[in-house]
């Protein structure tokens, strides 16, 4: 079933990408075309086929030692804050997380 602009507005909200009315129309057309491109995936009989999530099958998590790493990988505070749009003291500054009584969308 084709996606409607309302469906796509919901996805945009979830993806945190604000789209205006014209962008919503274009994105709806794109997504419907793109999903058709994916149809070969649904045409397979895949019962009993294991998924491959990753090309290196036996990969396991690499665990670091639980100690403070003050070496090259520890990002100094000034570096960590250097590219932020708004900072205050040692912190990233953000607008209200809950909004002005309207709740987080």
């Amino acid at each position, binding site marked *: 079933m084709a*996606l409607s602009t309302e469906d*796509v507005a919901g*996805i*945009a*909200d*979830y*993806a*945190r*990408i*604000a*789209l205006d009315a014209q*962008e919503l129309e274009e*994105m709806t057309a*794109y*997504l419907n*075309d*793109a*999903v058709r*491109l*994916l*149809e*070969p*995936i*649904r045409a*397979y009989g*895949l019962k009993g*086929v*294991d*998924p*491959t*999530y*990753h*090309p*290196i099958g036996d*990969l396991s*998590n*690499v665990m670091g030692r639980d100690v403070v790493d003050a070496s*090259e*990988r520890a*990002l100094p505070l000034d*570096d*960590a804050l*250097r*590219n*932020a*749009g*708004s900072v205050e003291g040692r912190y*990233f500054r*953000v*607008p*209200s*997380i*809950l*909004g*002005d009584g*309207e709740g*987080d*969308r």
Partner: protein
Amino acid sequence: MASLDELSCAQIARGVAAGDFSAVEVAQASLSAIEAREPAVRALLQVTAELALAAAGATDERRARGEALGPLAGVPTAFKDNMHLVGTRTTCASRMLEGYESVFTASCVQRMIDAGATPMAKANMDEFAFGSSTETSAFHPTANPWDLERVPGGSSGGSAAAVAAGEVTLSLGSDTGGSIRQPASLCGVVGLKPSYGLVSRYGVVAFGSSLDQVGPFGRRVEDVALAMDALVGPGRDPFDSTSQDCRADFLESLEDSIEGMTVGVVPELLEVKGLTDEVRQAVGRARSALEGQGANVVEVSLPNIASSIAAYYVIAPCEAFSNLARFDGVRYGYQEPGCATLAEQSSLSRAHGFGEEAKRRQMLGAYLLSSGVYDQYYYPAQQVRTLITQDYARAFARCDVILMPASPRTAFRFGEISDPLQMYASDMFTISSNIAGNGAVSVPLGLGRDTGLPVSAQLQGPAFEDRRLLTFARALERAVDAGGGLGKGAPVAPGCAGRGGEL
């Protein structure tokens, strides 16, 4: 007087070590080539002259102190702009990261510099690597050095064009679905996508985490082999959990004979719609060239490769959506001013920071990962991935490498492919080796009979047999050289050659 256009990496490194010229002089020659050629080609987003001269100066000082120099001593090198290098911006060719200053250096970049390479520039790309033409760069398009009216391919189009134009001798790109091999093909240079896990991705901005791999571009197979030795030589990178320990023996096996080895060909792939006659013929000549050097040819089958594009456009957008969620306008990246809530700030920062294709891919990923849809597409795509991987395993039981096209056609004009889905189809020959994780290389075969533009062949090998891939690539290069080529790998594009670059 020498020209940078004529020198291989090994010749540059030997010349610097012998004192025939200094690393600073080589860097200046590269800067003069960039100055003369870049206004037409526009392969670069940032020329790092100060960094380059400082690095080259340090190389010359090491020589003056009598220290041994690295195998890439003085080699002018460009890095795709999704690779962090302290002292440069890392923008991914996106407004989202315009002005972002690198706060650390990617392992792949550091290893090239440690081997002596001189960092000349950051190269243009499709925004966040979403594209096959470098037209989605937020800053400017890049022209194909062989025909300025045409695209260089993508997403690593700047890295390929900078080498084809002779602005630099080596470059690094990244390949998620063909982003090294397709631009290498369109620009007439060698481009290797190593096996997944061979090269560290630490410090490279992520696109598709189960697909991304970093690799080199050069005008000669030997240059690419030297770069690979530099990238894998120091061993696995503890900063990247996908990084594997591999032998740095690319150069030493380069001239091995291919006599008695077996090349697989896939007949159904040569009948694919959209494959042009001149590319089909070029791949046929490549087959004859390998047979002429004693290789056997067998037909193999990759029945599920036809579904690679569908599987890829499920897996890659999902991984991209997940990876690009970090761009929320808080810690880095474009931040929309004057927003009352964090949600509004995130949504508007992402809406105004990302370009159209970056938004499309993330929206597709968000949809495919949503409840109910995941089971219809994402999970089956990963099962199809298993089938594609099994196809390769069966094929490589019967052959050492598979020969096929890299790109279905030569370079296209700006704006010629405007439908995103048609653009996706241009990766039809490259995507499957990202899905399976095996290595693949695009090797230039001279100019196509019909368009007069660079054509190439692609060689794909089993995972972690990349060394053998380069042995076969070198065999093809030998044949091209013997058949009227310059005898020293792919040339600098004629419109660029000889303009600046004197040493």
